[in-house]
């Protein structure tokens, strides 16, 4: 049961992708 419930929870699986994109974008802007 626990796994089925976990599977229904909306969790942030791809944060690192956006965090990287954000970092690169603002590093470029900073330059």
């Amino acid at each position, binding site marked *: 049961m626990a796994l089925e419930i976990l599977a229904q929870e909306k969790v*942030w699986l*791809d*944060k690192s*992708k*956006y965090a990287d*994109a*954000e*970092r*690169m*974008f*603002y*590093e470029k*802007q*900073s*330059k």
Partner: protein
Amino acid sequence: MASGTLYTYSNNFRAYKVLIAAKYSGSDVKVDPAFEFGVTNKQENFLKKFPQGKVPAFESQNNQYLTESTAIAYFVSSEKLKGSSPYEKALVQQFTSFADNEILPASYAWVYPSLSIAQFNKSSVDRAIEDVKGILEYLNNYLLTRTYLVGERITLADIAVACSLLQLYQHVINPEFKQPYTNVNRWFDTIVNQPTVVDVIGKFEYCQKTAEFNQ
């Protein structure tokens, strides 16, 4: 409440949360003009203070170091901004968490592909758009009978939620999309046009036309 130096790149909506909270609280928080993102936060003496090299990062006048924008916003805030009763304080924390845990993931997944900052993937953008509709729907119902999110005046809840919505209203929420959410639009407009907020983020420009996704 603490005063000191904030390290961040410009136009960082997380840093806005701190700077707006500081201005409302009367605490003296200055952005370090010499900070260069990608350079300063990789240098030895920065990493000694902030081992993860993340921004915004805060250094108080008493050399106390702090990261995580919500924690910094609380640190520079007056009691007034945190809610008055224990339950109001809890609601302020509920909304600051809601901004970080629910609004930001949806905002990233819609705004960044639209600005070509992140890869475009139709199904995840469509899901993000549905999530944003759910968030605006919830806030719209909640704000039907309220001027501010918690209590009778502006708190960190309004500041945190408004800052987490900035990129959405600026880049992708066009007039047609936001039409059904009149209470949120009124509330958001009230916040971004507060003189204290305008001092920090300047005149807010709403999105008129959502950027087309270049596949």
